[in-house]
């Protein structure tokens, strides 16, 4: 019975465990010494303090959000957060539709705005264009006087004068005439929300030409959108300043003063002419000439849905006849102009092609952005949690204290129940704790795993689950002792039976952890992860530590002879002598079970 094979295996397992612990310790030390690792686990925001914002896409009538577009949205939000100078922020997708932004500090309003701002694509008519850097002498007083003169204001503005061509009265007339047709055709550009815009231009540039008699701008390309306020904002805008656009007011029905993405050009744009949710597809590629041969010009091909196609046809028909820069249609994403190409011809079929000296890679990126902007992915804050570091620290401290108390209670109880054997439980829990600590800390360094409050609770709960494996095992060993086996044999037989129970029970637990981790939301994930991790560590400890240790202890006289306090005293366990039943089977004393179940057939 007491062959050497189990003991050799036991020693090997213990050595393997030691190697594992040393290796994990080595990785941890290495990460601290040579990397950016730390000796304690990385903490989640709810423990460390910080903000977590969960963004949910605003989806119309239950439309599904594709994983691709969500990933793109994530990338864009990462860019936005980074550009706001927040360090250590994490942006992750959660489930199939949400985006979680975790910031290790409490962010300013500007950062918040930047994160949850709409990322819809828009097409707006260019009203005026200028160099991105303002001319220092550009006095605001020039603007009112310009508008009072009745001519288009950009022409009077010194800063825009270089590029913006003056709008002659002839074109102004033509402009508004077409605009009337456009207004009749498309209901979308309503200037209703722009109280300030309609009130101020008392000296509208086209009062005589507009047949409507109203002073309000009558179409997306109407220069009347340029009110003194707009002009003033435009003059003051410095696109070289990265913070210049933080305060920009982006309202669909109002004109927009903004910069190009690279900051080199600034624009006054009309209200939204076609909104990006009407784009059905955008692809980048080489343009083909009418003969079908591929040219070297890179183009972005857009496809609109029927409503978008109609609006796009209208605006292109209007704009083809306008002088530069008013024949440019700006593509706006996140309030910045991506590209503002000119119309060379009207595009009636909703298949627009944008060219303009793109590289293929650049065009692809823009096409992606266009496509992305075309998806109904504007985000709404689903929840936002600011945790003060004080509160988080307090939670952690009490959680830690509670864990220690719980552990102590478990220690007392196992000593009470299992006497010296209880120390095997305790040392196993200590080993499991050590492994868990190392694993979590290393994962924090390598995989940026953060321990949050739910995770801490998971760890505390795991004490109970881990201890259960030992209880199942010990009870089996005791059962075997009761049947009259020697300790060494009881440990082996008991182990062979307990092993299966421990495996299937931990299997159920692990399955639960995996399903929770994969399917539930982020707050559940921390818990599921620690549950899964501790289940694995539990298996490891039972197989590589507890069982080997017990195997080796069977040689120790204290346990072998069944000392009163060993927890394995056969006399106390009521072991039956001489119960060998032949063929290697020990007959348990047969129970008087019949009495418990009626003998009804």
């Amino acid at each position, binding site marked *: 019975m007491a062959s050497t094979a189990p003991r050799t295996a036991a020693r090997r397992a213990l050595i393997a465990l030691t190697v594992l612990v040393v290796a994990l310790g080595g990785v941890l030390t290495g990460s601290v010494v040579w990397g950016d690792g730390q000796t304690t686990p990385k903490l989640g925001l709810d423990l460390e303090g910080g903000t977590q914002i969960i963004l*949910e896409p605003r989806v119309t009538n239950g439309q599904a959000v594709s994983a691709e577009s969500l990933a793109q949205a994530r990338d864009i939000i990462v860019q936005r957060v980074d550009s706001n100078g927040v360090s250590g922020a994490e942006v992750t997708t959660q489930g199939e539709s949400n985006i979680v932004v975790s910031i290790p500090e409490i962010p300013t309003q500007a950062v918040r705005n930047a994160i949850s701002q709409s990322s819809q694509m828009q097409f707006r008519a260019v009203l005026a264009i200028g160099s991105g850097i303002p001319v220092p002498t550009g006095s605001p007083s020039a603007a009112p006087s310009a508008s009072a003169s009745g001519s288009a204001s950009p022409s009077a503005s010194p800063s825009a004068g270089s590029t913006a061509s003056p709008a002659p009265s002839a074109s102004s007339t033509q402009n508004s005439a077409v605009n009337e047709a456009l207004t009749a055709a498309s209901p979308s550009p309503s200037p209703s929300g722009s109280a300030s815009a309609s009130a101020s231009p008392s000296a509208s540039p086209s009062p005589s030409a507009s047949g409507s008699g109203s002073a309000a701008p009558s179409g997306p390309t109407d220069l009347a959108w340029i009110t003194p306020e707009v002009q003033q904002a435009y003059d003051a805008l410095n696109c070289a300043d990265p913070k210049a656009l933080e305060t920009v007011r982006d309202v669909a029905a109002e004109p927009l003063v903004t910069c190009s993405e690279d900051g080199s050009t600034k624009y006054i744009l009309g209200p939204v002419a076609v909104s990006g949710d009407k784009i059905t597809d955008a692809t980048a590629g080489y343009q083909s000439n009418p003969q079908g041969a591929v040219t070297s010009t890179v183009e972005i091909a857009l496809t609109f849905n029927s409503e978008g196609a109609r609006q796009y046809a209208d605006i292109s028909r209007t704009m083809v006849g306008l002088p530069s820069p008013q024949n440019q249609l700006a593509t706006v994403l996140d309030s910045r102009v991506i590209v503002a190409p000119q119309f060379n011809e009207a595009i009636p079929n909703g298949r627009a092609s944008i060219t303009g000296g793109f590289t293929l890679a650049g065009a692809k990126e823009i096409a992606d952005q266009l496509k992305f902007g075309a998806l109904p992915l504007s985000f709404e804050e689903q*929840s936002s949690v600011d945790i003060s570091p004080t509160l988080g620290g307090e939670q952690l401290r009490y959680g830690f204290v509670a864990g220690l108390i719980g552990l102590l209670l478990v220690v007392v109880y196992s000593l009470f129940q299992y006497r010296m054997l209880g120390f095997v439980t305790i040392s196993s829990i200590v080993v499991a704790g050590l492994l868990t600590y190392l694993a979590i800390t290393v994962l924090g360094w390598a995989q940026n795993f953060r321990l949050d409050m739910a995770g801490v*609770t998971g760890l505390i709960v795991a004490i109970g689950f881990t201890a259960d494996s030992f209880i199942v095992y010990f*009870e089996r060993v005791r*059962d075997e002792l009761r049947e009259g086996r020697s300790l060494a044999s009881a440990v082996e037989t008991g182990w062979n039976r307990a092993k*299966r129970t421990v495996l299937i029970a931990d299997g159920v637990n692990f399955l639960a952890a995996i399903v929770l981790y994969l399917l539930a939301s982020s707050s559940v994930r921390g818990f599921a992860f620690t549950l899964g991790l501790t289940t694995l560590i539990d298996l490891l400890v039972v197989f590589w530590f507890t069982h080997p240790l017990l195997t080796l202890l069977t040689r120790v006289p204290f346990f072998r002879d069944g000392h009163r306090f060993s927890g394995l005293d056969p006399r106390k*366990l009521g072991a039956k002598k001489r119960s060998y039943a032949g063929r290697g089977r020990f007959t348990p004393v047969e*129970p008087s*079970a019949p*009495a418990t179940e009626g003998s009804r057939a």
Partner: protein
Amino acid sequence: MSTSFSDFGNDLYTGKRSIPVVAKRRSFYLGSLVLIVVAVLGLTVQGLNLGLEFRGGSEFRIATGSTPSDYEQTARQAVGAAEDASGVNVTLVGTNTVRVQTEKLTDTDSQQVRGELAQAFGVPEENVSATFIGPSWGASVSGQALRALLIFLVAVVIMLSIYFRNWKMAAASLVALVHDLVITVGIYSLSGFEISPATMIGFLTVLGYSLYDTVVVFDKVRENTNEAFANGRMTFAQAANLAVNQTMVRSINTTVIGLLPIAAVLAVGSVFLGPGVLVDLSLVLFVGILVGAYSSIFIATPVLVSLRRNEEKVVDLEKRALRHQTKKAKDAGEAVPTSGDAAAPAASVAAGQVDRVEGATLTGRTVHEYARSGPRNQPRRTPKSKR
């Protein structure tokens, strides 16, 4: 106590003492049925107390060194300065944290209120945490949790059916699981404990635990019943009942050890921290583990026996076992078990266990002196099945 507890364990193992779990299963079914009805009634009448996460709103927590006695007034004034004071809920959480719940505030308002609160309580602004939760948050979390639960159940049924090679064991575990779920939810509805997303996580864990516990008991049931099928000495019900008794000590120890750390967290958390992830989770785990331990002993195995009762194999085993037991009893010149015997333990069920004098077993070759010198044995009767 320890000695008697280990004696208790020994007796349960050998079958000297037996808790008639399977025989009395109708009582346990009835008890659970009553609990379930109460739970469902509570749920329909009272509903669940859903937390802020499900209703939507804003919450502020102020960590103060020492809470002023007029904290409620102070908080109301501070919030009232920025927001209409109606619908503002101020509570003291733990010993030194004030929780202020308001209706949904905009970001700007929220920042402002945060500043006002910090000022009113004379703490730095980073001691105030602000939470805004849209009403869809809780719903989406629960939706995901529910989906995870369904997939988990399907996966577990497949896994257990393969492991036990018997779908009825998987089915019985599921019955126990649903039982735990309904009763835990019922306890939540009747007690009015608040349900937060952390509670949802806890529910899911409880279900995992319930299955885990049932699996451990079933593993022993399978071992015993396989043995019974092989040697025909015990009926299926007897073997299953013995398994429950043999794992009883494990179940008690596991439950106690599982509950100890959770109880510690619950106590520390509710005294010092108040409602939060820590307390919500530990509360639901505490309730759930208790219910789960109960169901894996008193519901799962009896249900399994009920499910398999009419199987040909099981009926056949019962006949064989009774034949064997009758023969054994005759050999020993002892009482033959009859259906009338079931009445004797029934009387002591209230005490939770059935004491049997040593040696008075059917099989015991060593008969207790008391039995030997006692009153003459009952006249032999053929078992009911043979009559």
